[in-house]
């Protein structure tokens, strides 16, 4: 654990005094030429970068309605100013959502509006110069695209849209971020964020099968590339190797086993995450989604289910139907081909939480909740699930279903403070392409509001377990919890809780406790 100026947890969340430019040098490592070129971006900052940047801004304004509407509509009321976890954790005024947008908006005004062209000083219009580009790079990589600001904005202005557009512009002039672009290169080449090839994945799954059988005496399978399976599971690759993610994967496998469904993973589409969204690039995001479409067609599956990953679920739920035709209600031939193959009696795609919840509702899963009695659990709503998706097709289902699944597996559940959960949830501090060690200071400080709420729940309700359903949240919490004197192992996958309490047919170890 490296030394950092970790913020102190007060009794209540405080709005900090402004500390101008305190995070001005927090920018992450830049992508090198190879990483840039592998995604079709210029290898390094091009000579006429200003001109190309302005052209690219013009393109985003023409292609995405959100951009001109959000840039024009802001009245600088300040409603969002104290809603961003990075502002609350750092006090840097450029981390106020409106100020972050203004980095983009001031250039927009200068080049695309009457007032900014002729009265730049009056309306705060600015040129896109070297120092502005520095600010863009630093501060558009201090936004986790969590959309909390959009919930409070009277016009729904979503800073995530602006951040994505800004990153898109920067990539177009050869100024990319190492973490995102390196990972995207691996997905493109191998199929997952880790760059884990098929044999390694197969070995990992076999090891897991052995481990589960040792633990439970039941031969729970984790099939790979099983043609003709009913269900294709798309999950973040972190589920294959990281802690506590892997215990979630074991949980999904047990649920599938218990339901008797035939399912499979795909070595070609072994990644649920889609960092194309983080960099605001439609084509790259679509490319990632198309791998899943191809895997579904090749394997002939009837259903596609997505594992625990926040932005993956936003991309799957909100964007897949657009990008690839995985969904329903298509009129075009392209999407109909896939939609005819998929079983439209089920939502397509479906979240693993929805799948487990349905089985619980139908009484097809039995739990020994006492297995989780050593835990008092609280649930962290992941931002992309909470504010970018739904579950169960009912209003607020994305808040309800995970909690119901947890409660089915645990006796002790308490929510954190209402202003920090559900639609108002605070980001873990590591989302949106910021989960990299070169941004550790930002990540620790950005976690402050969540840590504050957790601390409060620990003190008032004895919470000792933090359940999450996002690979990034789980990794981020494991890393930052110790900075706030919490146990890093208190973070668990929701399906780990399921896994620990689920009664498997033919499981000797659990049969005993069942009869107790």
């Amino acid at each position, binding site marked *: 654990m490296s030394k950092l100026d970790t913020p102190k947890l007060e009794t209540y969340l405080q*709005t900090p*005094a*402004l500390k101008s430019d305190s995070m001005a040098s927090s920018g992450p490592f830049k992508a090198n030429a190879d990483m840039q070129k592998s995604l079709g971006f210029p290898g390094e900052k091009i000579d006429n970068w200003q001109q190309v940047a302005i052209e690219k801004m013009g393109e985003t304004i*023409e*292609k*995405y*309605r*959100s951009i*001109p*509407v959000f840039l*024009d*509509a*802001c*009245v*600088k*009321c*300040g*409603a969002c*100013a*104290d809603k961003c976890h990075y502002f609350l954790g750092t006090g840097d*005024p450029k981390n*106020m959502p409106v*100020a972050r947008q203004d980095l983009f908006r001031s250039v927009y005004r200068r080049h695309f*509006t009457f*007032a900014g062209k002729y*009265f730049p*000083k*009056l*309306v*705060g219009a600015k040129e896109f110069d070297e120092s502005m580009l520095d600010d863009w790079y630093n501060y558009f990589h201090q936004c986790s695209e969590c959309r909390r600001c*959009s*919930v*409070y*904005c*009277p*016009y*729904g*202005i*979503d800073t995530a849209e602006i951040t994505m557009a800004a990153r898109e512009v920067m990539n177009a002039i050869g100024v990319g971020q190492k973490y995102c672009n390196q990972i995207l290169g691996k997905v493109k080449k191998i199929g997952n964020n880790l760059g884990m090839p098929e044999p390694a994945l197969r070995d990992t799954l076999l090891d897991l099968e052995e481990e589960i059988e040792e633990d439970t005496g039941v031969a729970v399978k984790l099939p790979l590339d099983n043609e003709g399976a009913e269900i294709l599971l798309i999950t973040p690759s972190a589920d294959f190797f990281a802690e506590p993610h892997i215990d979630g994967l074991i949980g999904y496998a047990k649920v599938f086993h218990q339901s008797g469904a035939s399912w499979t993973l795909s070595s070609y589409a072994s990644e649920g995450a889609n960092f194309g969204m983080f960099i605001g690039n*439609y084509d790259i995001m679509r490319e990632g989604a*198309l791998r899943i479409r*191809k895997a579904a067609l090749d394997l002939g599956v009837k259903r596609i289910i997505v594992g625990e990953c926040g932005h993956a679920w936003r991309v799957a*739920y*909100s964007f897949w*139907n*657009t990008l*690839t035709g995985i*969904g*329903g*209600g298509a009129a*075009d031939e*392209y999407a109909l081909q896939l939609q005819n193959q998929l079983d439209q009696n089920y939502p*397509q795609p479906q979240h693993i939480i929805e799948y487990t919840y349905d089985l619980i509702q139908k009484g097809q899963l039995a739990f020994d909740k006492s297995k989780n009695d050593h835990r008092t659990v609280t649930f962290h709503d992941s931002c992309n699930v*909470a*504010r*970018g998706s739904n579950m169960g*097709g009912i*209003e607020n289902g994305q808040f309800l279903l995970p909690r119901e699944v947890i409660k089915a597996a645990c006796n002790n559940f308490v929510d954190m403070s209402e202003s920090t959960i*559900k*639609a108002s949830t605070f980001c873990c501090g590591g989302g949106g392409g910021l989960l990299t060690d070169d941004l550790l200071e930002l990540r620790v400080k950005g976690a402050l509001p969540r840590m504050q709420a957790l601390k409060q729940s620990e003190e008032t309700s004895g919470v000792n377990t933090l359940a999450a359903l996002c690979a990034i949240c789980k990794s981020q919490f494991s890393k930052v919890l110790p900075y706030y004197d919490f146990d890093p192992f208190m973070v668990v996958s929701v399906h780990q809780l399921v896994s620990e309490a689920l009664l498997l047919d033919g499981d000797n170890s659990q049969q005993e406790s069942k009869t107790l």
Partner: protein
Amino acid sequence: MSLISILFAVFFYLAVLLCLVGVTLKVAQYASTPVPLKIPTAPAPLTKFGVVLRMMREVFLFASLFRASKWTWLFGWLFHWALVLLFIRHLPYFWPGEAPQILHQTEPLKYAAFPLIFGLSGLLARRFFVDRVRYISAPSDYLLLLLLIAIALTGVLMTFAHYYPDMGMVYSFAEGLITLNWSELPSESVFLAHIFMVFVLIAIFPISKMLHAPGVFFSPTLNQVDDARKKRHISDWAIDKEKNSKSG
């Protein structure tokens, strides 16, 4: 007609023209720009009816702002509703011929001037005294509030402090602007200042942040139905992309 009457009449038409043309162009721009992805923000409605309700909550009640900041909500909400009431109060001036009976009973609406000034002053004070809001304020943000306050104060002077102009002349000038039957303008300076500033306000509408008024209806995070899994939502440029690629 006096030069000043002519100048004011010309300025009125110019301001209204700028406003109408500018807002029309902006609305046309928003309406014709594609929305390639489903991006409703929580709490997202699952039906069109839900979207209508959500939009009404935002437009009439400022629901999100209420969640965000009670003070800003109070100042902003009072100011906007007072402005609506005062707009109604001004309708009889412009009504060609005999105004409907209901508009003759709008006299008490004049008191909306006070919540208007209260709200605007609160918003201005926040720009000076809340460091976060001060940081994000450009000169135009202060000036627009000052302009509105000055309009309100000149209105109050005329209505409550006996600086009123010849009301007969006001009626015929205002009605004349609409019916193209121009007549002489009263020459009291408070009145002239009042309407001059209102014309400025109208003229700068489409080049200022007042675009939030049409903008809110086009905000995809607020106006989209959350039904991405049920209906395929796709923009024209994305369809072209699909046709041009054989993958998948």
